[in-house]
């Protein structure tokens, strides 16, 4: 298997003049998804349970709606494809990020309406991340704004045969070496590290947002304000549980009153990650506390 184990893989996809969509990357991603789901592959979750890998276990992310639309059309029905926004707070054993754009010049045109080209998957959340990037190698020539990201990238990615002040020696090596890398390739590797550092930082700063419903006659926002902190359990809907399991310490939660009220009434913060309910076998429950966040105005 080409991607055995866990980690982050970069796979070059050579193309030119692609801005917000790339047919080449759509084909590569489609082939990868097919190979993964038909390959009899198994993955292990954070409780060390093994599962067969299915279409639902793969997230495909692209930075542009045009590329997302092309990927949806090409991939099997039900594939989880979207921009980063759509998957915020979600996780999957495999995340494929299609960088789409060929070069920084193309990107500049396409990125004008976007923020940072965050190449982050969700390493903070996924216990066993297996991610791939499909990208035009020249894309990594993009300059990122923060100089310390540059330095960090150069520190964390040592390049064989490249030593300070050793120009002659390194040039000699490149001639006789079994697997010489060109200066351009070396720069591309440094920049890959830089993008990864910037992406990781952007992800670390991000905080997921959730909305949870409660029946005020059972447990109202006022009760939470009084108790300061409470354990949130008793959720049984499988979809709700799936979302609940992705809640992490520091996430913000909108509290919503059901019943006659039907309105968002306040904000709370999660003070712990979601954890399995000790009283039950499978479902998750979590603990949180109300912070100094104001009550939302009602109608």
């Amino acid at each position, binding site marked *: 298997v080409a991607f055995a184990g866990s980690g982050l893989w970069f796979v070059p996809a050579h193309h030119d003049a692609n801005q917000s969509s790339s047919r080449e990357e759509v084909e590569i991603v489609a082939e990868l998804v097919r190979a993964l789901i038909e390959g009899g592959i198994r993955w292990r979750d954070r409780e060390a349970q093994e599962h067969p890998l299915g279409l639902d276990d793969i997230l495909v992310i692209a930075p542009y709606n045009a590329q997302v639309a092309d990927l949806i059309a090409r991939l099997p029905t039900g594939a989880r494809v979207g921009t980063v926004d759509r998957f915020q707070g979600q996780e999957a054993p495999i995340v494929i990020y299609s960088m789409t754009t060929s070069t920084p010049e193309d990107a500049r045109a396409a990125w004008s309406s976007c923020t940072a080209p965050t190449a982050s998957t969700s390493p903070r959340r996924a216990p066993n991340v297996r991610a791939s990037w499909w990208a035009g190698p020249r894309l990594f020539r993009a300059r990122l704004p923060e100089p310390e990201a540059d330095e960090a990238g150069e520190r964390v990615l040592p390049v064989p045969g490249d030593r300070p002040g050793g120009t002659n020696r390194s040039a000699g090596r490149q001639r006789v070496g079994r697997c010489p890398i060109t200066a351009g390739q070396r720069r591309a590797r440094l920049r890959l590290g830089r993008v990864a550092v910037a992406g990781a930082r952007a992800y670390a700063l991000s905080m997921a947002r959730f909305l949870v419903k409660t029946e005020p006659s059972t447990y109202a926002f006022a009760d939470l304000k009084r108790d300061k902190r409470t354990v949130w359990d008793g959720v049984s809907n499988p979809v*709700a549980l799936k979302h609940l399991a992705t809640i992490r310490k520091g996430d913000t939660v909108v509290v919503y009153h059901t019943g006659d009220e039907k309105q968002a009434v306040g904000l709370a913060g999660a003070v712990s990650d979601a954890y399995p309910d000790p009283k039950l076998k499978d479902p998750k429950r979590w603990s949180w506390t109300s912070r100094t966040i104001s009550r*939302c105005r009602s109608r």
Partner: protein
Amino acid sequence: VTLAQVKADPALKATDLARLPRLSVMPFTEAEYQRLLRLAGA
């Protein structure tokens, strides 16, 4: 912020809150969250 306000808002009417009345825990995107806060402050 009432459910009626959420359903009437173009930026929020596609959220799970408006679409899936029985779902009790749901993720919000940053944009949706900021929009909700703006409605709350209005």
